[in-house]
């Protein structure tokens, strides 16, 4: 029975992943990722990680993806030009090589423990009680640091995205963008117009 669920979850996750990568409209990619996350949550449940699964759905799929949706709505999907260069072929090739290698590593090598079904189940494994205890005793420091990180990220995002006073009118940007920029001169600040000495 669990095998069925496993396959359902796995195929869902993989389908979602492929959807993220292949869909042209970014909004669809976001939705595909949401589907992927929920499939992963299912897999987590199968692995007896209830709290993690719940956190995944609530935090990840719920909050982070909603943020994503907002930004996509703001920025707009836009037509995406096809990717150029050799990376159109090389990219998937690299990925394929990596996948094969990882699989060989995991399955073909001497990871004996993988062949088993895992350790016996202890009740309370993966429950919020256990997670909370661990967070507040053994992993207190990472917990605190993670919260600090969240704070910093939030402030950073606000700083990055705020509206600056005295922005120049639009046409100057357009002209700037159309001048051919050599790889070795200029700077990001100049191109965004924050520095006026071009």
């Amino acid at each position: 029975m669990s095998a069925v669920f496993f396959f359902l979850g796995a195929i869902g996750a993989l389908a979602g992943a492929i959807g993220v990568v292949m869909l042209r409209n970014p909004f669809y990619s976001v939705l595909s990722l949401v589907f992927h996350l929920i499939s992963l949550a299912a897999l987590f449940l199968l692995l007896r990680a209830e709290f993690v699964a719940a956190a995944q759905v609530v935090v990840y799929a719920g909050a982070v993806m909603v943020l994503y949706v907002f930004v996509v709505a703001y920025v707009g999907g836009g037509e995406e030009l096809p990717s150029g260069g050799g990376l159109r072929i090389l990219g998937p090739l690299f990925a394929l090589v990596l996948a094969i290698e990882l699989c060989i590593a995991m399955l073909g090598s001497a990871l004996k423990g993988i062949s088993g079904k895992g350790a016996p189940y202890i009740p309370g494994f993966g429950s919020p009680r256990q997670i909370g205890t661990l967070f507040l005793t053994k992993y207190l420091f990472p917990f605190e640091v993670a919260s600090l990180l969240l704070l910093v990220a939030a402030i950073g995002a606000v700083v990055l995205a705020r509206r600056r006073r005295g922005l120049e009118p639009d046409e100057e940007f357009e002209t700037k963008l159309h001048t051919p920029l050599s790889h070795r001169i200029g700077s990001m600040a100049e191109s965004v117009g924050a520095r006026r000495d071009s």
Partner: protein
Amino acid sequence: MATTTFAWIVLLCPLVGTILIGGSFKVLKGRTAGVIGTAVIGLAFAFAIATLISLLGHGPQQRELTSSVWDYARTLNIDARMSILVDPLSVFMMLVVTGVSMLIHLYSVAYMASDRGYTRFFAYLNFFVFSMLLLVLAANFILLIAGWAFVGAASYMLISFWYRRTTATKAGLKAFVINVVGDVGLVLGTFFIFGHTGTVDFVKTFHTVPHVFVRDSPDLVAGAMFLLVGAFAKSAQVPLHTWLPDAMEGPTPVSALIHAATMVTAGVYIIARMHVIFELAPAAADVGAIIGGATLLIAASIGLVVTDLKRVIAYSTMSQIGYMVMAVSVGAYSAGLYHLMTHAFFKALLFMAAGSVISAMGGVQSLDRMGGFRKAMPFTFGAFLIGGLALCGLPPFSGWLSKDDIIGFLDHRGGGFLILGVVGYVGTLMTAIYTFRMIFRTFFGEPVPEARELQEGHLHHVDVPVNPANGEVEELDVGFPGPEHHIAERAMPMKVAMSGLALLAIVGGVAQVPGVDHALSSFLDTTFADSTIIRDEHSTSAAWIGLIIGAAIALAGIGIAYRVWVVAPGTSAKLIERFAPIHKFLINKWYFDEAIDFLIVRPTLWFGRFGNTAIERVLVAGVITGGTVSIVRACGALVRRAQTGFLRYYAAAVLAGITLTALYFLITSS
């Protein structure tokens, strides 16, 4: 105090003088620098006498003293120490150097008085005396080479003393370059000798050489020849002599000190000092003697025709040093050094007197424009005459005794050296002719305008200072000669110095009168006791016969000069016309300058230019530097291609790296 302590003080006095004068260069006013300089050398002379007395206090066999202050090279068993050797030879040289220098310093106090570079002059002069003393007191090859180089440097600084005169700077450079050739010879000679003896100390070397080398062994001859190259460059022997006439661009006291009395005698000193080596390599010694004889004749012949007063005296110096080189090469050490001493006296005197005459002429040095100064400058005339008579070798002047001592020795040794003896007599004749040519042309005949001015009591003053050599207009600022000229009649220091030297020129000969006393040779004998040349005293009567022959030849020469220049004034012009090709050859100094230019200077310049364009520009700058640069640049360009700025490429690189690392671990773990 120990003898060597005195010697150290002698060495240090002029050094202190240099530092003192050079250091307080800005604050010394008037003639203070001159007084300090002269006093310091006077002190050195006093201590030199003290050294002599102290040395005589030792028994005759214990007169080779070394004293070392510092051991500064203790690697590879090279025993290079800062040490001095006090023995009769070095004390003798020390006395000559300090004594004559003292008088020349005194002379310069007045002579250079109006020159803007007065203080600098005395600093240089003291430095020179220090270097010369270092040279003669050195107890090992290393210090000798150091003193040699310093002396060359001092000579350069003093020749181009009037540094804003292009002729002076060119002359200084020429002297320095030729001196460097000599330096190289000296150093190479040292290597050759050191290679076998393993020591650079003189005393040890001279003891080791007879055991390590056989007679005329190739390395020894090579070493001795290189030493001779050094000696010839310093003493202006053919073919390294071309710098000496040009060195007359320096002020007259410089010519007197360096190019008459001291520096040019360094070559003679070195041959005398290394007599053990030269006696064991007769091939080299013979070369020395032949070159000395050749120089004697060549220089005397040129001196017959040159028209610049100081250059005649310069060629005379060259010729007399030929005598000395000849002497010490064949084994007549005391004779050669005796002549060195007397030559220092009368040559310095001649230069001083010439300086006085040139001052009266307002800086002009050409004999063509001089004449009839006898009444205007009696003191100078007297000094010049005394110097000239001593130079010609007339009794009872010192030059007579010393020159004929040399020739007598040559005759006595017989064999091939007899030819050199004859050469010596021919040289005597020519010496007498050119010396009195100078005297007659300068002091006899119709007084020239400058002389007439002086007779009326008014020293000739030049309105527009001009370089006498090429007629360029000069200024009176630093780097050029000062506005005033000083003659002996009016400057007491000059008179005192010249009188001192005149006295020495007259009575200096008493040190070694054959049959009467041999103070000098017995004093110097202990240094040369290990000479293998048979020096049994030739009989007094033979010596006196030689002296009389010499005096007769000199008188004959004076007579010829009198005939040509006083009795029949047009004779020299007629002679020049008749022997025009010979005259041309002589007045071009036997074309030595041109030959050296053609054989050495031009190829070197060509090679330098070739090196610059072909090797330097193409190979070094182009291939090596440029090549390296372009390789680095290419590598940089290659690496720069990775800095694209494309995010995805960077991500691809990261991914590739991870993949490869994982692959590596996969392979190594399985």
